[in-house]
C-alpha cells in the first residue's frame, strides 16, 4: 500500500486549509456556520467594537433554540433576559443579512436538527457553531465541531478559525445490534468503555457494520455524543443512505449541481491502509440497552447491570464517590427498579422523528405512570408536523402524554423546563452533569426506548420486557 493513503478526516481537513502556520494552528476555512441566541451576541458586539463586517453572510444560518419556551410560543417570551437574547439574534441577523429562523418560523427548531433536515449540512463540509453538539453534523461525512464565542467572531469576520489539527481515531463496531438496542445505546456503550475523556485530542471516525446499517438520524445521535467522549468531533463516511436522505432537501444541490456534488461525495472515504493514531473496536453483541448512573456521560452501563464499585471505573475514587453522592446512589445497587420522577424525550441527541416513533412503539396501548411528569419536545417544527401526520400524536395522547413545542428545553434547562432539585429524570439528552437539567436535578441518560419504558412503569425498566 502506498503511503499516500489518507483517512476521510484528512481528505476533508486538507481541503479546507487556507494556510498552515509553522509551529502553530491551521487557518481553517468554514463552509457553514450556525448561530443561536446564547453564544452569538458577544461575538456581534466584538464585530461592532472593531468596526468589522460579516465577510460571507450567506454562509451563516441563525436559529433560536437554547432559550425558547416550549409552550405558548405565540405569546411574548416572559423572561426578559431570554427575550433580550432572542431579540439580539433577530436584530444582528437582519443587520448583517443572515438568514434567521426565529420563534414562530415554520423552519425553527434546534440548530442541529434543522441544519440536516433542510439540506444545509452536506458531506465534505466544514461546519461550526457555538455549541459543542455541532459534532452531530459529522454523520454526513462533514468535519463539524463546537467553538467558543471568540471563534464565532472569527468566522463571522473572516470565515476562518485557527485550528490545531487533532489526532485521528477510528472506532469500528461490527455485527448486528440486538433487540431493544438503538443508536443511542452505541455511543453510551463506547463512553462506558473509554470514559468521558477517552477521545480528548482526537477526531473520531465511526466505521463498521453497525454504522453502515444505521439510518442518518441514528448516525446523528452517534456523532452528537462524540463530544461527550472528549473528541473534537466524530464522522461517518457518506454512502447511499446519506445521499438518499439528502436528495430533494430544500437547500441541498439540485440537478447538475447534485450530480457534480455526488461524484465528489463518493470519494469521501478512508483509503485502505490509511493510518490512525488510535484504533478501537467493539462487537455489536457486547451492547445492551444502556443507562447512566453518575454525573458524567462516561458513567453508564448496561441496564441489567449494577452500579460499579469505585475500583472498576476510570474516574478517581473521590470524584466517583462525589458523583454517586449527588445522585443518591450506592456502589453495587441494581439500576433497574430505581424510582423515576421525570421523563424527557427531545434534544439534538434524540429529538427527531425516529426517536418519537421509538417512544410511541413502547407507550402504544399503555398509560403514562401516575408518578411521572413527561416532557416530550420535538427537535423542530418539521418533526412536530411529522409526529402529527404519522398518527404518533394520537398514540401519545391516548397514553396520557402531551407534546410540547420545539427547542433545547430540559436538556440544558435555560428556559422554564427545569427538573426540580433531588428529582430523578430519565432523559434522552446528552449530559448528566450536576445541575444540568436544573439545580439539584439528577439525570439518567438513556435511549427513547428506555425513556418510554420508564414513562409507563414509573421506574427504570428494561424496554425489552415491554417489546413483542
Amino acid at each position: 500500500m502506498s503511503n499516500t493513503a489518507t483517512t476521510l478526516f484528512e481528505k476533508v481537513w486538507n481541503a479546507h486549509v487556507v494556510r498552515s502556520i509553522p509551529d502553530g494552528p491551521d487557518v481553517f476555512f468554514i463552509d457553514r456556520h450556525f448561530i443561536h441566541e446564547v453564544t452569538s451576541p458577544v461575538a456581534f458586539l466584538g464585530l461592532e467594537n472593531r468596526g468589522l463586517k460579516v465577510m460571507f453572510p450567506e454562509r451563516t444560518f441563525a436559529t433560536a433554540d437554547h432559550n425558547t419556551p416550549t409552550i405558548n410560543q405565540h405569546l411574548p417570551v416572559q423572561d426578559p433576559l431570554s427575550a433580550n437574547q432572542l431579540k439580539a439574534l433577530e436584530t444582528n441577523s437582519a443587520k448583517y443579512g443572515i438568514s434567521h429562523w426565529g420563534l414562530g418560523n415554520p423552519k425553527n427548531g434546534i440548530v442541529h436538527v434543522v441544519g440536516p433536515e433542510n439540506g444545509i449540512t452536506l458531506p465534505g463540509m466544514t461546519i461550526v457553531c457555538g455549541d459543542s453538539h455541532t459534532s452531530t453534523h459529522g454523520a454526513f461525512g462533514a468535519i463539524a465541531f463546537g467553538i467558543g464565542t471568540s471563534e464565532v467572531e472569527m468566522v463571522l469576520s473572516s470565515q476562518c478559525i485557527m485550528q490545531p489539527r487533532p489526532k485521528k481515531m477510528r472506532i469500528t463496531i461490527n455485527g448486528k445490534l440486538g433487540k431493544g438496542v438503538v443508536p443511542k445505546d452505541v455511543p453510551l456503550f463506547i463512553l462506558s468503555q473509554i470514559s468521558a475523556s477517552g477521545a480528548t485530542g482526537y477526531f473520531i471516525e465511526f466505521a463498521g457494520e453497525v454504522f453502515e446499517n444505521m439510518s442518518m438520524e441514528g448516525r446523528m445521535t452517534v456523532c452528537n455524543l462524540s463530544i461527550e467522549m472528549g473528541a473534537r468531533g466524530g464522522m461517518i463516511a457518506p454512502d447511499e443512505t446519506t445521499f438518499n436522505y439528502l436528495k430533494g432537501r430544500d437547500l441541498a444541490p439540485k440537478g447538475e449541481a447534485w450530480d457534480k456534488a455526488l461524484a465528489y461525495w463518493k470519494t469521501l472515504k478512508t483509503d485502505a491502509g490509511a493510518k490512525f493514531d488510535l484504533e478501537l473496536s467493539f462487537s455489536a453483541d457486547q451492547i445492551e440497552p444502556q443507562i447512566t448512573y453518575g454525573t458524567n456521560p462516561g458513567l453508564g452501563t448496561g441496564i441489567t447491570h449494577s452500579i460499579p464499585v469505585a475500583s472498576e471505573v476510570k474516574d478517581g475514587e473521590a470524584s466517583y464517590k462525589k458523583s454517586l453522592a449527588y445522585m443518591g446512589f450506592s456502589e453495587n445497587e441494581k439500576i433497574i427498579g430505581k424510582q423515576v420522577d421525570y421523563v424527557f424525550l427531545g434534544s439534538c441527541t434524540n429529538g427527531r422523528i425516529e426517536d418519537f416513533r421509538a417512544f410511541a412503539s413502547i407507550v402504544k396501548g399503555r398509560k403514562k405512570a401516575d408518578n411521572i411528569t413527561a416532557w416530550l419536545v420535538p427537535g423542530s417544527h418539521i418533526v412536530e408536523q411529522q409526529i402529527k401526520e404519522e398518527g404518533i400524536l394520537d398514540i401519545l395522547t391516548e397514553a396520557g402524554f402531551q407534546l410540547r413545542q420545539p427547542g433545547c428545553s430540559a436538556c440544558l434547562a435555560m428556559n422554564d423546563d427545569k427538573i426540580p432539585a433531588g428529582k430523578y429524570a430519565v432523559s434522552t439528552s446528552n449530559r448528566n452533569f450536576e445541575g444540568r437539567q436544573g439545580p439539584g436535578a439528577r439525570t439518567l441518560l438513556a435511549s427513547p426506548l428506555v425513556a418510554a419504558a420508564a414513562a409507563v412503569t414509573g421506574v427504570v425498566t428494561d424496554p425489552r420486557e415491554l417489546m413483542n
Partner: protein
Amino acid sequence: MAYDKFTVLKSSAVPMPIENVDTDQIIPARFLKATKREGFGDNLFRDWRYNSDDTPKQDFVLNNPIYSGKILVGGKNFGSGSSREHAAWAIYDYGFRCVVSSFFADIFKGNALNIGILPVTVSPEFLDKIFKAIEADPKAELEVNLPEQTITIVATGDQESFDINGYKKHNMMNGFDDIDYLQSMKADIQTFAASSPY
C-alpha cells in the same frame, strides 16, 4: 477582545482536586443570558459556591479565605462538556490568569487561550506535587514562566516544562488575538472561498 499580556506569573493557587470539572459547573446555563461580556465572575462555580438561598457554602474552596491567588489548579479533564466561552470568561473575570491540570478538554483549552488565560498541562505526578505543596502551605507559590515554558513550585524548586505552540505563545506574550491575524490575510481567504465547491 484585548487581554493582559502574559509573561511570568508568580502567585499562590486555589486547589480544586476534582476530576471532570465540566463547564456547566464552572458556569451553569441559567447564567448565560447576558448579551454583554461582564460580571460572569460573580457566578463562577455558582452551584458549588452558593446554597439555593444564595448563602455561601462554607466547605467550597473559593469560600475558604486561606486560599487565594491567580492560579486555579484542577483535576484531570478540566473544562469538559459545553463549548460556552462564558466558562473561560467567568474564570478570567474572577481574577484567575492561569489554570493548571493534568488534562484539559479541547474546546475549553482553545477558549482559554483565545481570551488570555494560560492553560498549563502538567504530568499527573507533578499535579499531585502541587496539591501536596498547597496542602502543606495554602500560601505556597507557583511560578509560571511562559517564555521559558516552565512551571515551578517555588518552595521546593520542583519544576516541569509545558507545551504550547509558538504561535499561541507569541499571542499570549503580546496580548494579540486571532482576529488581528485573520484580518491580515483576508485576500487569501477571498481567493480560497472563490474555489470552494460549497
